């Protein structure tokens, strides 16, 4: 009997984990990540990291920047493709939290692409690609001319 949780429930878990992340607690998010070598993070702060030790460390570091208290997130789904062992989800994430030691909360929007894989009866995130380009930036942002 297949006891893998429904993908909808896993995505709800991810939403909850993201809210906790915005409060500085990244443990629930890390639990939802695949621990395999190919787990990949293209985080909204830039760069790319691969493999559980580096991806996990990046989550630790990012969570430290969230001062904590009252973080919320609203995920607007743009598209989802759900297979039996692979699920791809494309969203806009609207986060509300406090950064570093700032007293005032801020709202920021990420474009996100997630790929989840079924591993040993559980859905695990194998890719998170996030960037802050939810609004149009134009060529000047994407590539600066040389010289």
């Amino acid at each position: 009997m297949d006891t893998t949780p429904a993908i909808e429930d896993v995505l709800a878990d991810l939403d909850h984990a993201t809210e906790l992340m915005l409060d500085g607690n990244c443990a629930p998010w890390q639990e939802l990540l695949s621990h395999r070598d190919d787990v990949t993070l293209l985080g909204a702060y830039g760069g790319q990291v691969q493999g559980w030790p580096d991806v996990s460390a990046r989550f630790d570091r990012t969570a430290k920047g969230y001062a904590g208290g009252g973080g919320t997130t609203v995920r607007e789904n743009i598209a989802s493709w759900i297979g039996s062992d692979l699920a791809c989800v494309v969203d806009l994430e609207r986060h509300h939290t406090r950064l570093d030691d700032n007293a005032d909360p801020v709202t920021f929007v990420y474009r996100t692409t997630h790929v989840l894989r079924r591993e040993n009866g559980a859905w695990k995130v194998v890719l998170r690609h996030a960037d802050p380009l939810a609004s149009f930036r134009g060529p000047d942002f994407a590539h600066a001319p040389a010289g």
Partner: protein
Amino acid sequence: MTSDGLLQVIRELAEASGALVNGDPEPFKSHWSHADDVTIFGGYGKHEQGWERVSSRLDWASARFRAGEINYEPHTAGSSGDLGYAVGIERGHVTVLEHGASGEIVLRVTHLFRRENGRWAVIHRHADAVTEIHAPSHLLHDH
């Protein structure tokens, strides 16, 4: 868990990116699904959905490029059933119409694929130039 078929398509897509930055979007577009659910998170920001809008966006972007070259550095890829994904870096030089001078381009890219009629078709592209690590405050500009 990546089928050889997908790796081949990833290679072809990389070549097609080269044509796109030389003003010809057709090879790149030929790899896409023409379905209503396709989406693009383009390198210039915002998003488009549905083949008509995605296709227009690719035309628009390509029309801004001249004399470019792009190399694809594959990072990871996987597939299962009728879905696949690929993550890599597109790195090269492009001449952008607005600037008139050649500039470096480095994009983090994720492509999602769906098997349609026996071939892997692109259903989503996520590209951004966020290759350097920024402080959180940097992200708050322009929102």
